[in-house]
């Protein structure tokens, strides 16, 4: 980030190519969950991964962001194989918010956010620079946590805690942000709050967002690009309007549902009717 401040122009992430996934085979231990997957994830947009439990969406997310090393295949970021690149270098390009992050007791929000600056520490004894402090303050501001900065994480509500973790991830100042079910275990107001923050990070700061979401209507509303998975493969992919069909819901989730248009946003949403029952 340049010294000019935290405005849009200081985060110029243009001239970046999309994330390319080629012939990916991945899973846990020896269990293959995803096989021979080819996929392109657009840069500068919000992408939502959806699918029923166990479909491999979390596995895919974790493999793309190098938490899981694939058995074969490649994930390319700007022409580089992610799984062969230096992990510290990558930490300046991609940040991850895992599903259930935990922090040790007593750690304050400000201290946690400061951990997000770790990839930028070079010498072993370097003190925190002004730039680091600026970004930490910016992360506090964007996530509306300024008044709680010195509060320990374990005393926060679920929504505040999730915002604190997002603040840490954005303090990493990366162009790409991976979020694994960022809204799970939050009440509806806090879910909206987190997703609106995600939208702001994309629109105002140009960040690429890739997230796993459970709530379909939230995916339709907040994502530019939806990837619907089933049994380890991508079944449907595209804009919410293109992906959100009765056919997709029947195939991917095994439900019949009515698809309607939100009168305000003009975006599709669904009202689930029954489990099972193909078209």
């Amino acid at each position, binding site marked *: 980030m340049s010294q000019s401040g935290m405005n849009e122009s200081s985060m110029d992430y243009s001239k970046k190519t999309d994330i390319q996934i080629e012939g990916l085979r991945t899973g846990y231990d020896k269990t293959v969950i995803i096989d021979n997957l080819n996929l392109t994830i657009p840069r500068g947009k919000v992408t939502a991964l959806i699918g029923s439990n166990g479909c491999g969406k979390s596995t895919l997310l*974790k493999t793309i*962001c*190098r*938490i899981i090393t694939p058995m074969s295949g490649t994930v390319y970021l700007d022409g580089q194989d992610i799984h062969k690149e230096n*992990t*510290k*270098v*990558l*930490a*300046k390009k*991609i*940040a*991850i*918010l*895992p*599903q*259930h*992050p*935990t*922090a*040790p*007791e*007593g*750690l*304050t929000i*400000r*201290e946690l956010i400061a*951990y*997000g600056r*770790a*990839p930028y*520490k070079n010498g*072993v*004894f370097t003190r925190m620079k002004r730039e680091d402090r600026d970004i930490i303050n910016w992360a506090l501001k964007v996530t509306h946590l300024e008044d709680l900065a*010195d509060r*320990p994480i374990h005393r926060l509500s679920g929504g505040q805690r999730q915002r604190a973790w997002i603040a840490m*991830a954005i303090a*990493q100042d990366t162009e790409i942000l*991976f979020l694994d079910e960022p809204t799970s275990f939050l009440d509806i107001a806090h879910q909206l709050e987190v997703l609106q923050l995600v939208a702001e990070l994309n629109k105002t700061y140009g960040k690429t967002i890739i997230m796993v979401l459970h709530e379909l209507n939230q995916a339709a509303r907040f994502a530019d690009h939806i990837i619907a998975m089933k049994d380890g493969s991508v079944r449907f992919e595209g804009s919410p309007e293109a992906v959100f069909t009765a056919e997709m819901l029947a195939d991917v989730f095994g439900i019949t549902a009515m698809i309607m248009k939100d009168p305000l946003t003009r975006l599709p949403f669904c009202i689930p009717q029954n489990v099972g029952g193909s078209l």
Partner: protein
Amino acid sequence: MTLRQKQFAVYSTVFLVLLLLFFFLHVSTGFTYYSHSHLLAILLGGGTAEENTVVFDFRLVRAVLAVLIGMGLALSGAVFQQLTRNELAGPGLLGVNAGAGLGVMILIFLTPIDQGLPIWSLPIVAVMGALVAAGSIYALAMRKNEAGGTYALVLSGITLTAGIHALQTLLIVLLSPEKFNQVNTWIIGNIAGNTWAHVLILGAVVVVLAIILYANRTTLNILTLRDETAIGLGVSLKRSRPGFLILAVILAATCVAIGGSIGFIGLVAPHIARRLIGADCTYVLPLTALIGGWLLVTADWVGRVIIAPDEMLVGIVVALIGAPYFLFILARKRG
């Protein structure tokens, strides 16, 4: 100055003053009584040859070693707690005391009784034994789950430590009475009977490793978050975890080799530090060292005065304080 920095300034001053106070008390305790002013004069170079021997070669060596051992064990415990994300972890759980003990016992067992041992031999066999034990426990815990579950670590720690103790008991049966006394004193923990050479060896190890750990405090911090978070922040788990483990084992094993199998300091000191200053190693590490140094020099002083003119081995004093504290943490965890 942030709130944390103010807290740190206050707490570190408090424990530094406590440390210096009990250090002075420690040095002023012994068979020969010196008034405080006279003791100060001796310390500043105004003593007779005999006074110098008593104060410098006996008392000061012992007090300085107590501080260094306390600091080393405490720092090592702090690192183990970071790595395992468990406030019950310490050098003992990772098999350092047991492994180092076995190394020392084998060395004593194999050495003829009338043959002196070079000063560095004990630390070296202790470090080797501890590395084997801690490495095995770590590998055992990591084999199932490359992410390294806390419970796997704690369970394999307890299991392997029990196995090593069985081996020690086997060896004890085979020892001569003289060697048994030597080994037994070591197992309980005793700082007396050392020299400035011991101070030099331990001092170098503690200072160098403390600096390395503090320099890498950010990585240590990140390791307490989940593996996924740590990877996301650019920390290489495969390199950093074993690296810190080895440093912590060397630190604790060297302390244990010179001071005997003192337990609990590595558990209690970082725990107190965390309760006071939170979780950031920037503050936790220095405060842990101060508390550890203070605790052990105080425990050794208590051991010297509590049943005077006899002396209680420092390991017993520490265990008498440490065991209830361990139970207190356990009870708190349940609640």
